[in-house]
């Protein structure tokens, strides 16, 4: 009997102790991880950044098949610190394909309603987050990215990542942008967009991947002039 009473008392005292621990841990966790909400210790849901509609270019610059341009889409991530959010850039590439495709991938993300020959990919590599390049000539892929030779039907412009040589085919049948070589577990991520007259308007981006980019950090150095800008 006494034993049970002791147990009960122990349980009762445990409640404020546990509560106190949570109260202490919660701000500590936000100290470490500023995207946690107050009183939230752990989250599984990924941050849902907000971007909104942004005009990234015009169809005029994509006149011929395999024409392309690079662009940047800016998103905001929620942060529970005094500024409230953090901006980050997603570099992207817009490509004119030689034929119309359904711009939807095997992960179920639909980038464009209906058929399109203009496709927009995020250039953040789905492998480990480097920025991959659009290579208009597949020979450059073979020469520069570890020696991969594409099969005959894929000898056209490709996208290739300098870090671990994942190669993506923008025109991959039924899954444009899918990975055709290298360690990436999936194809290039999409932008969601529509075409408004001449303007290409991005309205969203497929989630996933971390370690995007903060706009403020891309400042060029003064000395030496070694800094190279992205080709486009």
């Amino acid at each position: 009997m006494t034993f049970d009473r002791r147990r009960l008392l122990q349980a009762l005292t445990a409640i404020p102790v546990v509560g106190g621990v949570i109260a202490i841990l919660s701000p500590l966790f936000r100290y470490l991880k500023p995207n946690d909400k107050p009183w939230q210790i752990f989250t599984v849901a990924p941050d849902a950044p907000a971007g909104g509609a942004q005009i990234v270019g015009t169809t005029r610059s994509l006149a011929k098949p395999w024409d392309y341009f690079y662009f940047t889409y800016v998103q905001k991530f929620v942060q529970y610190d005094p500024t409230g959010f953090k901006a980050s850039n997603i570099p992207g590439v817009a490509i004119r394909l030689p034929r119309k495709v359904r711009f939807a991938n095997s992960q179920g993300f639909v980038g464009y309603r209906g058929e399109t020959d203009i496709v927009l990919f995020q250039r953040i590599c789905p492998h480990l987050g480097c920025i991959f390049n659009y290579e208009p000539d597949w020979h450059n892929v073979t020469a520069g990215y570890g020696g991969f030779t594409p099969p005959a039907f894929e000898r056209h412009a490709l996208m290739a990542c300098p870090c671990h040589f994942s190669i993506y085919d923008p025109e991959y049948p039924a899954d444009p942008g899918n990975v055709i070589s290298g360690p990436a577990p999936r194809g290039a991520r999409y932008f969601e967009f529509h075409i408004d007259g001449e303007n290409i308007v991005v309205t969203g981006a497929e989630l996933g991947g971390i370690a995007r980019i903060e706009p403020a950090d891309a400042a060029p150095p003064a000395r030496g002039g070694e800094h190279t800008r992205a080709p486009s």
Partner: protein
Amino acid sequence: MEAVLSNLKEWLRDRKEHLDLFDETKTARQDNPLYIVGGLVWLSWMIVIVSGVILMLWYIPTTTAAYRSIEHITLDIPFGWLVRGMHKYGADMLITCITLRIYRMYFAGEYKKPGELSWMILFASLVLAMISGITGYLLIWNQRAFWAAKVVLTVPTYYDEIPVLGNLGLGRAIAFIFLGGPAVGQAAITRFYAIHFGISAVFAILAEIFFYRTRRRRLNLSPLAIGLVLGFLAFVSFDRLTEMGRWANPNRTPLPILSDWYFLALYQLVKYMPPLWAGIAPALLIGYGMLVPFMDRTRETRPLERPFFFVVGLLALFYFIVFTALIMLNIAVISRDPPIILGVTFVVLALAFVWEIAHRRRKAQRAAQPAPRAVPARPAPAPRPAQAG
């Protein structure tokens, strides 16, 4: 339960007594150069700490100023190039010496009783040194550093894709905590700076406690040797001015892009594996390193008397060199290479296993026969031959 605990305590007490962190108990064997690497580990570590603290006087840990502040240190400040060179090349030397010492202890079987704890600490120190390396070179804020940080901290996000466990959000949390945000930015520099300094600060204090308790000498090298090391590092700093690389450009990954030399082999490995494995494989390697004293249970220390573990060590050395060479040559045909590598590994390990079994059987037979006195098969508990190192 009690018995297990007291056994463990006894084990710990005994291993602690035999702790040897910088070869300070092996001074009698310094005629073999492989037995001064321990002292060199301590020496280069101290060089790195001292030069690092001096660099802190001038370094500015922000994304916009870091690069220029280091340029300023290297080019404008009197002897700044020397301090930075000592820091960088001292760190290279530190990692080289830890690696050499690991291989020595491995092939000479020094991780066996009573050296288990020393070995585990040494192995952990390699991991910590590599973490210091990666956190340290982000501070320059150049292309190489930026992309290394980004790649390394994207690896943990794949922990959320372990099939059975499901998404616990843990991997993402790890990445987020290290980066301090969704990107490699200012928060990441600040955190990396703290980690970079913190590791050495904490462990330097622990090492001091160790020396204080054991009353051993910190540095068992002759003044001449110390002078030679310092002179050599100073000369290298002068002759090969530490590189700046290019200012980090988050919109462009350069082609080709390499990491620091001690990550190259791992980097090549990451190209060959699915990314989840790239996160698990290093953990397995570390696990193997930490647990090998408990897997290799024979008393034998000579490499040829324990063929399997000898071959595993050789294979590790071989892959380290081959992968490094491959990445420097920019070769990685991902559809062709992995089966070859897996095949070679499997065959070699299988052969090593057969060798081990055959060797044990032969030994058992030899032990069973009453050996003729005049010709002993092997001088039984011989003192360790010098070439064992």
